[in-house]
């Protein structure tokens, strides 16, 4: 895949995202090494898709993705990653097909719905010197709970509630964070509340919380639990920034500014959910928004660098 040339501002966002992804892989014990460790919950589907997107920028990611397809594919939700990839560029979706092919070669037949491979080839055996997945670090909580409870909405909803530091959360906010349907989330959290694993409020609509003291003891995690970040929204925002950069390369200042407004308006939630302070485009007219948007992208890049 040829390396893309980005404009200065988009380049900073891409570079910051590549760094964040690299740090997360290092935290999970892949062959990536980094001086820093991830400080927020690692979202495995978002991490996989981010990596597929950025592999042309950071070529070493291709090797990690190959390792992950064999060592970690079983911890991923096929349905969730498919939902999250729906609005991503064709090259990322193609990368996901290749990932699914590799996962099937590794023996995980759940990926058949994404793979183009007709039948399972000979199982791919991980090389003996491939590193083991590390789940003992707190940012790996989502993967750890999936291994314990099963890949699906219950493990992910519990991760989100623990990462919310015991705060009450609505079905809507859990669904937004975990990218499952509100109906699936409602059913899962009601069952978990009935089993005493979560607390449900008496209010209507009900809200849910996880007792982090009790869960922390069980999981040997000292509060605070790493914070939740809306990586899926961040991934879509980065995609939009890269597309904006590509579509408006060589365009007039006004066209760049106008299309930047589209990105800011469409991805307003990505900034809000991740608490990245950016100016409201409606307060600035004509092409004066361009500098503000570029500043917003730099804030996003800064956020990626800080919270990896």
């Amino acid at each position, binding site marked *: 895949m040829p390396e893309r040339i980005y404009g200065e501002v988009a380049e900073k966002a891409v570079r910051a995202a590549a760094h964040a992804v690299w740090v997360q892989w290092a935290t999970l014990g892949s062959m990536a090494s980094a001086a820093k460790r991830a400080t927020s919950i690692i979202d495995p589907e978002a991490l996989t898709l981010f990596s597929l997107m950025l592999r042309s920028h950071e070529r070493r990611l291709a090797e990690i993705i190959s390792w992950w397809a064999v060592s970690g594919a079983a911890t991923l939700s096929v349905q969730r990653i498919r939902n999250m990839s729906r609005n991503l560029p064709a090259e990322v979706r193609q990368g996901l097909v290749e990932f699914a092919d590799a996962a099937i070669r590794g023996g995980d037949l759940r990926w058949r719905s994404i793979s183009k491979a007709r039948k399972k080839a000979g199982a791919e055996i991980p090389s003996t010197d491939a590193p083991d997945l590390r789940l003992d670090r707190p940012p790996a909580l989502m993967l750890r709970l999936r291994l314990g409870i099963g890949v699906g909405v219950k493990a992910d909803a519990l991760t989100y509630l623990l990462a919310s530091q015991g705060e009450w959360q609505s079905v809507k906010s859990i669904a937004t964070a975990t990218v499952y349907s509100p109906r699936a989330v409602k059913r899962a959290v009601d069952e978990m509340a009935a089993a005493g694993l979560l607390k449900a409020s008496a209010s209507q609509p009900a809200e849910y919380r996880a007792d982090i003291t009790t869960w922390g003891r069980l999981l040997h995690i000292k509060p605070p639990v790493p914070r939740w970040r809306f990586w899926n929204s961040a991934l879509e925002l980065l995609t939009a920034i890269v597309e904006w950069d590509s579509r408006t390369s060589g*365009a007039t200042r*006004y*066209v760049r500014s106008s299309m930047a*407004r589209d990105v800011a308006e469409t991805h307003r939630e990505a900034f809000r959910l991740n608490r990245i302070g950016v100016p409201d485009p409606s307060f600035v007219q004509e092409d004066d928004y361009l500098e503000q948007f570029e500043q917003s992208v730099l804030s996003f890049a800064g956020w990626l660098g800080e919270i990896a």
Partner: protein
Amino acid sequence: MASEQPGMHAALAAVGELLEHENEECAVVVLGGTALTLQGLVSRVTRDVDVVAMGEITDGKVTAIIPPDPLPDSLIRAVSRVARDFGLPRDWLNTVVAAQWRTGMPDGFEERLHWRTMGGLHLGLLDRMDLIFFKLFAAADQAGPQSKHYQDLIALEPTVAELDAATKWVLLQDASTAFSAIVREVADHARTDLRRSR
């Protein structure tokens, strides 16, 4: 010569840039305040752009003038985007005056159009003579010497012959006796005002 009104000029230029970016071309014929200000004939704030006709484009050149309804989708999209970006009303560029096609345009107006190209937007501005026709018509429709149309008519400084020609054309647009009287009254008023100012 009065200066152009920069806001509307910038908005139209923005439409042209958007069209060009999408590899689209559109041609519209404009009358009213925008046609006056863009040609520097009058200086006043223009709130909208009145599109009276559209141009068919072949190989980058306008080859025919046609009614403007419906406007091309690419132009509608660009206008809507500029409305958002410039804080303008959604109908800042509209075809309200397009009904004039049914009652008739001044003979030969197409040959007198002054074309300007702004990116992918070709803007046909009515000639001063045709603007005098329309301004007399509008001034009669919106009576009173304080009306902006009357003020625009005076600013165009028509000669007696031009006013006579305009009166003849406007009377063809509405045959009612009451309207004819108003048109003649406005034209007389204009002649008097112009004589005093010369």
